[in-house]
């Protein structure tokens, strides 16, 4: 059976078109080489349906299949879903550690130890002032200096206490901002629901919505730093996303997502923020330890300063500690004589006692907490980096590779064009020069 003279032209054309599409894909990859979350794409080339030459039409009597060229069957997104799961698990730990780091750094800075602005130094100055009063009990100046040094000390306690409260409050505020109606979770969940719809529609039509899928994966990555996430395919590439123990995005519901909800197992940044804002969290538990220091100071000084209280006996927290003694009511001795200094000496002897020790232990605990968290953060960071590196190794764009592909497809295009030129020459021979013998 004869084959159409023009069939070869069609085959070459398919070659030209397929190489061009592959080059376009390479161009897309190169253009997105630095786009975060982008997965490289690959034009999958496959031979087209062959032309069947029926039986008995060739010499042997058998049939044959004549190749008709190439076609791009799909544009594939190169990505490893297993690495995504690993990345998201590590990203949750990193989100937790980073949120804690921010707060703990502030806590550590608030203490300002060791240094001349810290409470330890104010306490030391307070004992110095008592010692000066013990050396000069008659001197109104020494007593005045004592009272103002005590007031400075009380103010330092109050400032530190309120700074710790602020750190906890900031954690709560940040949690509220992220989970609020205009927060990240709400907007990302809404976008995810929209992407789910678009992706499902495209997949149903037989398309591969690579770039939409990249965007969706990127959003899920971002969610994973806030709380634990897990994803399930509900069919046609529409993903159900579980977030912190509750279902955040569900393509089977009309709205596609549901927020706000109460997270049952937050983890990640949101879990850390909730913990930091709670009374058992680092800032507030350090504050209650500071309260114990203040209470110890008030009790031990007042126990010796018996005539009138030195500190307000009701103010036994760091926030409420206050000096009620004045220059006139500072008690230097147990008797009335102006030169008596036994009370002042007894209070001076409190230096290095339980108050200082409690405070020193508190500072050490703050240091340990910050140090441990810094280590946890750096471990989580290296794990995230390692997984991300693996992921980049699979999905990232390598310019060397793309350039090689570009040359490959360019040569393919050139060769297809050459085939077409040759066929054209052949047809020229057939059409313009055949049957003109003797003319």
């Amino acid at each position, binding site marked *: 059976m004869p084959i159409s003279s023009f069939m070869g032209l069609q085959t070459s054309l398919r070659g030209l078109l397929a190489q061009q599409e592959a080059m376009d894909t390479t161009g897309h990859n190169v253009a997105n080489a630095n786009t975060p979350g982008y997965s490289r794409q690959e034009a999958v080339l496959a031979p087209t349906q062959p032309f069947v030459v029926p039986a008995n039409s060739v010499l042997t009597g058998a049939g044959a299949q004549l190749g008709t060229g190439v076609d791009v069957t799909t544009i594939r997104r190169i990505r490893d879903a297993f690495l995504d799961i690993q990345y998201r698990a590590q990203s949750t730990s990193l989100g937790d550690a980073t949120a804690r780091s921010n707060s703990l750094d502030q806590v550590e800075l608030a*203490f300002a130890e060791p240094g001349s602005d810290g409470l330890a130094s104010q306490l030391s100055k307070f004992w110095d002032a008592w010692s000066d009063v013990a050396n*000069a009990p*008659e001197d109104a100046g020494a007593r005045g200096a004592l009272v103002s040094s005590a007031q400075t000390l009380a103010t330092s306690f109050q400032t530190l206490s309120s700074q710790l409260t602020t750190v906890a409050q900031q954690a709560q505020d940040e949690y509220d901002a992220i989970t609020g109606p205009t927060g990240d979770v709400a907007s990302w969940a809404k976008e995810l629901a929209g992407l789910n719809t678009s992706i499902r529609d495209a997949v149903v039509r037989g398309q591969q919505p690579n770039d939409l899928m990249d965007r969706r994966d990127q959003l899920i990555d971002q969610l994973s730093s806030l709380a634990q996430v897990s994803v399930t395919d509900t069919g046609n590439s529409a993903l159900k996303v579980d977030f912190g123990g509750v279902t955040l995005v569900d393509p089977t519901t009309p709205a596609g997502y549901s927020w706000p909800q109460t997270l049952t197992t937050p983890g990640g940044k949101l879990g850390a923020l909730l913990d930091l804002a709670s009374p058992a969290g680092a800032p507030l538990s350090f504050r209650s330890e500071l309260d114990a220091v203040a209470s110890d100071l008030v009790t031990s000084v007042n126990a010796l300063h018996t005539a009138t209280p030195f500190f307000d006996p009701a103010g036994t927290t760091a926030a409420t500690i206050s000096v009620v003694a004045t220059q006139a009511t500072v008690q230097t001795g147990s008797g009335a004589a102006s030169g008596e200094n036994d009370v002042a*000496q007894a209070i001076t002897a409190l230096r290095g006692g339980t108050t200082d020790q409690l405070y020193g*232990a508190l500072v*050490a605990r703050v240091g340990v907490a910050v140090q441990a968290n810094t280590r946890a953060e750096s471990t989580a960071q290296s794990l995230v980096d390692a997984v991300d590196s693996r992921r980049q190794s699979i999905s990232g764009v390598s310019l060397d*590779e793309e350039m090689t592909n570009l040359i490959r497809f360019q040569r393919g295009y050139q060769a297809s064009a050459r085939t077409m030129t040759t066929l054209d020459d052949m047809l020229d021979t057939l059409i313009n020069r055949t049957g003109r013998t003797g003319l």
Partner: protein
Amino acid sequence: MSMRITTMMTSRTTLRDLNDDMGRMSKLQEQLSSGKRITRPSDDPYGASQALALHGQVDGLQQFQRSVADGTGWLNTCDTALGQMGDVLQRVRELVVQGSTDSAGPQARAAAADEIDQLVESVKQEANVRYGSRYVFSGTATDTPPYALGGADTYAGDNGTITREIGPGVQIPINVDVSGLLGDGQGAADGKLLDTLRSISDHLRGSTPADADALRTTDIQRLDANMDVLNGVRADIGARTNRLAVADSRLSALEGNATQLLSNTEDADVAKTIVDYSTQQAAYNAALRAGANIVQSSLLDFLH
């Protein structure tokens, strides 16, 4: 198949390494510029709390030294005043010896008696000496002069003890009960210095042989006894001053030790830190050079 290395991986790794190097350098730079190994509790939690305790200890030792200095000044004031009293007593003794001889006439004796009355006032004035604004001989009633000049000879202070703390739990009394030396005057007839001086003055003015007798015997004996008491008190003050001097040098030594320990705990070892810093800087420069070379080239550079 070996791991595929992509463009973004290389640049990210380079950037992360540069960041880490920079972080370590800035930590070392902070240590160098502050001179401290510990600038935050998390640098070394145990060291930081130890540093706080040592700071407190150094402050406490300095305060003890101030107390010692104050106590020494107080005792020196007492000693000077008692020394002046001693001189006065010597003069009184000369007058008594002159006045008790038969050759001294009534007028000369009256003049001596007048001088002794004046000397009583100067003894009381010495007793009223002040350290700062405080009467050192009034016990704890430091705002009251112990004796009223030109008035009664009774002691107006109390017999409280004033102490200075010169070490943890170590207190040393720094005042002297001057009423044990001067007494409450003739009214009390206690045989102490003021009583003795007033009696001498009376006996010099009196012209009976009994008066002259008393001058030669009881008065001079009591005067000598009073001088012994005075010298005893001065010896005691000297001993206490010595104790304070010993305490002072011991406190200085302790402060030196504590400061040394504090420096070992929180100060940066400058030589080591500088070496570390240079090493880190070399690593950073190498990373920069490598980054500049690696990130720049690709196949693109060789295609035409």
